[in-house]
């Protein structure tokens, strides 16, 4: 199976690659970002497409994909929530925030492991994972929903209400 990359996206990818005049391989991260943005997560096809595009062995792309938590190999929910787990946010209540977000969205995190950090709600609308320090430690608990950033999240309900559609 090959990946159906829309022409406009491929053009954008080709344009990104020009940012690395010395080595196309440098474009691995940007290409994967663009593919993940389009398809929600990185599939095997996406890995092979990237490898072919950048003239790399697919293992070299897989090595990179699996290193970074920023690349997901499993489909997230429509709204993917990342809750900061690190010290300052934990002091500000991020574990409690995680619990209450899970409760409200019906997400069960009991199956979460190092290899499968993401848990998805039964309706597929929300997914959640812990992230490490999101660099806003003074204003915790901090979380991200898709690309949106939220500080001092004291109330799970009001956060989720912004993503209810």
């Amino acid at each position, binding site marked *: 199976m090959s990946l159906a990359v829309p022409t406009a996206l491929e053009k954008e990818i080709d344009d990104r690659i020009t940012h690395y005049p010395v080595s196309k391989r440098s474009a691995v991260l940007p290409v994967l970002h663009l593919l993940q943005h389009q398809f929600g997560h990185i599939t095997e096809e996406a890995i092979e497409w990237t490898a072919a595009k950048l003239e790399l062995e697919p293992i070299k792309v897989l090595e990179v994909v699996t290193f970074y938590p920023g690349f997901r190999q499993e489909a997230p929910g429509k709204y993917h929530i990342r809750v900061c787990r690190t010290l300052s946010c934990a002091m500000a209540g991020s574990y409690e925030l995680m619990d209450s977000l899970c409760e409200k969205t019906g997400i069960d995190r009991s199956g979460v492991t190092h290899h499968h950090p993401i848990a998805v709600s039964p309706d597929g609308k929300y997914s959640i994972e812990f992230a*490490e320090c999101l660099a806003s430690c003074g204003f915790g608990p901090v979380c991200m929903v898709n690309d949106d950033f939220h500080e001092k999240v004291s109330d799970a309900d009001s956060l989720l209400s912004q993503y209810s559609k």
Partner: protein
Amino acid sequence: MSGISYKSGREPHPKEHRVVFRNVDREGWDTSLATYLGEGGYEQWKKALQLPRQEIIDAVKQSGLRGRGGAGFPCGVKWGFIPPTNTKPVYLICNADESEPGTFKDRYILHQDPHQLLEGMAISCFAVGANLAYIYIREEFPEAAVIVEKAIAEAHEKGLLGKNILGSGFDLDIFVHRGAGAYICGEETGLIESLEGKRPYPRIKPPYFPAAMGLYLCPTIVNNVETLCHVKHILEIGAEAWAKTGTPNNTGTRILCVSGDVQKPGYFEVEVGKVTLGEVINEMCGGLKPGRSLKAVIPGGSSAKVLRAGDVYSVGRGDDARELTLWDIPMDFDTLAACGSMAGSGGVIVIDDSRPISWVLNNINGFYAHESCGQCTPCREGTLWMKKITDRLVAGQASPSDIDTLYGVAKNIDGRTICAFGEACAWPTESFIEKFRDELTSDTRPELEGAIVNSETLTAAAGL
């Protein structure tokens, strides 16, 4: 700072000295080039293009500017490490990976004042002879990447970047490169590997000192966002005037990021060494929470060794010898080093008496276990081991000798790894045990000594 007004509730503290953060939270300020140009933006860049390169490098050396990314290494000295005989291209990378726990400063420059960074970078590129530069922005700053790319495009349009800049004959391209969620990409050689499209495994030094063999094995200068911004100001007010701010050998201003158990956490740009930790906590941050007392402070990002409240620190030598309580410690590189910790990335984490130390340490160990790249043995195996011990400690499943094991594991990582992550992950454990052994031990259960805590590990060391 006359005539500048800040958004309500975000005004700088009177003890602040805003240089790099001048425009952060500023009323009426935006990220457009027009706004930036309206306040003398890119004037230093134009000036720099007329200067001999060495003059800029010398100014940066003279200013005493020390890296704001963590190690506090003198910026001008680093630039001077590019081999004089070099014939390869030179690259410059701005380290905007900002991921040291407790640190949140670069994000505001990226989000609110991108042109300041671009101007600082452009001047630095010109000084070191780089025609291609990257800004490595952590993945969790998606908006910042958009803002900075837009700023780059605007600067290109106005001929401030690109080919033959302002007729000087100097070419410069700056691109944004986004990370993907890995603390180790903040380590400069890990960053370089990541930028080369590989797993961000830090490189061994020697031989791979970036200034000699960095990106694509060419001389590469890696500097923090805040450091690069300062270059612009050094040019603007002159190295000597710039060095008058701050304290000797700890010149200039730096941004402190305070989080944890204080009333008003936040970021504060202060003259280095001109404010004490006590002033930071009690005045700038409104003090501790009601009814709480101070237990500990991590003064320079989570990797910095913890300082215990109530301890007395002997610093200085000879005539300068003094004894300081934690409250009196001036926030500068040298004093914090003399106190056995470091200024690091400027992230100050305040811990009050409501926090069990084992819980704090376990959280920190969780971070390092998650972020170890796994390349070298001590850190790969040791980080997870330390986390597993403190996991048991907080669960009441540890025995007193586990504390010794924990300490031994940290010591076996410290100083023996490929990159400084080894120290970064070992120092918290080492220092927490050195300072809080009694409290940690009180969380253990002597009756578990010698007991099987994980039946699975019983597998006999047969044959070994």
